[in-house]
């Protein structure tokens, strides 16, 4: 199940702290670089989640999967 933007935000925050710590120990290590790469990946995921939330309408989503239900039926004439 896709995480809520809130949970992803938490992950982003944690990953930034972790990256800062890792890089304090050794700024030129692969671990430091990999840690910031993880920050980038999570930031991108968080941004996508925010966009998806903005675009989505719960009734539209439900109707897409269940077009025959009363709330989602459309009549053409």
């Amino acid at each position, binding site marked *: 199940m896709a995480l809520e933007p809130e949970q992803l935000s938490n992950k*982003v925050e944690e990953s930034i702290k972790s*990256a*800062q710590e890792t890089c304090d120990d050794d700024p030129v290590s692969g671990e430091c670089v990999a840690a*910031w*790469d*993880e920050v980038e990946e999570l*930031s991108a995921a968080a*941004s996508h989640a925010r*966009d998806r939330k903005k675009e989505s309408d719960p009734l539209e989503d439900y109707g897409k999967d269940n077009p025959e239900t009363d709330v989602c039926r459309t009549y053409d004439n």
Partner: protein
Amino acid sequence: MAACTVYSTQTLRTNISIPTSSSKTHVGFHQKQVVFYTKSNNKRINSNNRYLITCKASDSQTIVIGLAADSGCGKSTFMRRLTSVFGGAAEPPKGGNPDSNTLISDTTTVICLDDYHSLDRTGRKEKGVTALDPRANDFDLMYEQVKAIKDGISVQKPIYNHVTGLLDPPELIKPPKILVIEGLHPMYDSRVRDLLDFSIYLDISNEVKFAWKIQRDMAERGHSLESIKASIEARKPDFEAYIDPQKQYADAVIEVLPTQLIPDDNEGKILRVRLIQKEGVKYFSPVYLFDEGSTISWIPCGRKLTCSYPGIKFFYGPESYKGNEVSVVEMDGQFDRLDELIYVESHLSNLSSKFYGEVTQQMLKHADFPGSNNGTGLFQTIVGLKIRDLFEQIVASRAETPVGATKA
């Protein structure tokens, strides 16, 4: 994949059986062998039986497009514009993994190359490698599966879950008319490169990338200007070592730079976008302004067209890029109004549009997408039309040359 029809002049006396054996060699790699044999109850061999086997390529004429971009996969604006040109909206596969990166429309399937990560997030952390590093990606599997799809064989493709950072169970990908592989390394491996019918590289300059990432991340709780900068800087070495060199192989590069119209602009709102088109690519005729091979600078704003500050400036000319002969169309500035867009469209040539105003129509259709008022949207849309044109030419050429017949 070929469909073979067997004709026999004698239809009654022989039994023709077609057993198929299917053997799996790898995750998702299928081989199918068809054996034709006849069995006759007559003791005398009837020499009047003649069999003619003809084979022709079936409708699986999948063309493969590679798109190199750092912006993550599948959901990006470029992909949505591209799939819109071919018709239909691309959506994640219904009923499958909700975190799938794949997008499917009527004609097009978009695959995210992150799905070919050989190391998940934990694995990369342990080894100290970024996702940009080739060591984190399984190019053998990427090649096998893209080749299989191109040959008309469905594959079970792994899923890389961007949220959990884990590799999820695979999903079925059936060969579409157009397969787009999008990600960091579509042109890195030479075998995969050779499978591509057309390739595009989206090249965002450092200043613009920085401005965009600030816009994207400043709203995030944990981020600050320093952390955004640190993240970009840390990834730079790997980016320049592994991703950037793919530019030389791309048939089209869309380069996004800060504007030259406003001195010292650092907001990154007005963009200068260059469409760098390789010459001599089969089925691809570059877009041009005024006359092919000439050089021209053009400001459309004037008596016929009034533009607001800072205006619009176009450039077209031949250049040399990474050792290749290219033609460059460049747009600096922004469209404010519909009539600016249609005026510009009417002066560009070789757009491969099907009717006057098609580019404008496509841009308006997605007026809410980022870049809809500047060169990024314009050139992405044009590249979409070029790919459609390429697809139609390939299909037409394949229809003319079916595989030959053999006599038994």
